[in-house]
């Protein structure tokens, strides 16, 4: 079966609609069929729908995403309570260990993102992976830092990513590879993204899953959960009427 490729982390400047449109067009030309754009906390439904319409023109499916940067676990829980039903994808930018742990064990979190290139500020270890595997959260790896950094900084980042990818595979935590692009120049073809994954020892099938199967599953699952027919995990309304 032909793979459906997805890039779940595009962050264009939403004030510049021409740039947004260009990035969506580029994603379509690079053979993506599903993208997610990061919206601000106060994004209005009309704004999301307007960009969804642009995506439809380029025959590409758009998922709404929010990046949460909480300072404490309590703040994260408050954000999740407020925003879970508003966005299709929730990613948590883990900048502290307590936030990372809370995000990993909360079933409402889809993606765990560790932006710091500093090894000591990345908190994806075995304990984190164990929590994430029970709660369905995925590890997100952005390729933008890999492209920007050079020399010893890139070497250190690759070393961290290699360790994290191995831990994620050991604990069956899905890995999602995204571009993290704010500009067209940082967008790459899905196969090229998968090739970049070889730099941190991800095998070809796992790398291709990281740009197709894993991200599409998250969006599919969340769309089912956000649908009005959803009652509880495994239960949904099939039909309404007197004789049900």
């Amino acid at each position, binding site marked *: 079966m032909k793979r459906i490729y997805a890039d779940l982390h595009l962050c264009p400047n939403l004030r510049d609609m021409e740039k947004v449109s260009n990035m969506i067009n580029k994603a379509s030309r690079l053979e993506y069929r599903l993208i997610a754009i990061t919206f601000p906390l106060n994004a209005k439904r009309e704004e999301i729908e307007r960009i969804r319409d642009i995506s439809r023109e380029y025959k590409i499916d758009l998922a709404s995403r929010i990046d949460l940067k909480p300072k404490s676990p309590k703040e994260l829980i408050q954000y999740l309570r407020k925003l879970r039903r508003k966005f299709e994808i929730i990613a948590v930018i883990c900048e502290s260990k307590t936030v990372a742990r809370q995000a990993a064990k909360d079933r409402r979190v889809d993606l765990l993102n560790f932006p710091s290139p500093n090894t000591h500020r990345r908190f994806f270890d075995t304990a984190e992976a164990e929590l994430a595997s029970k709660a369905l959260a995925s590890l997100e790896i952005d390729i933008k830092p890999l*492209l*920007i950094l050079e020399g010893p900084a890139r070497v250190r980042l690759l070393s961290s990513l290699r360790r994290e990818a191995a831990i994620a595979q050991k604990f069956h935590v899905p890995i999602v590879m995204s571009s993290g692009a704010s500009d*067209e*120049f940082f*967008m*790459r073809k899905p*196969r*090229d993204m998968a*090739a*970049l994954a070889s730099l941190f020892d991800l095998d070809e099938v796992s790398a291709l899953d990281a740009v197709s199967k894993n991200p599409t599953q998250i969006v599919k699952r969340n769309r089912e959960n956000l649908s009005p027919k959803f009652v509880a995990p495994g239960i949904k309304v099939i039909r309404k009427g007197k004789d049900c």
Partner: protein
Amino acid sequence: MDAVWSAVSKLYGEYGASQTGLTLIDYNMEKGFAIIRAVHTAVNMVRTALASITKIENKPAAIHVLIVSGTIRALHKKLENRLL
């Protein structure tokens, strides 16, 4: 081609670069594509190196792999089909 060699050397070192067998076969400036030959066992290395290029002569740039083929003849056929 300097950018490609530089990217391969940065990622895999001179030893790795020597295993790729990189050669520029054709470069079409108008259409913006090039044909590069590489040893088939090093295709993934070259693909990775091409994806890691963000600048050419200090100007922002990105290189995307269009087609990979075993022979240049087959490559041209695939390219024609793609451009049609």
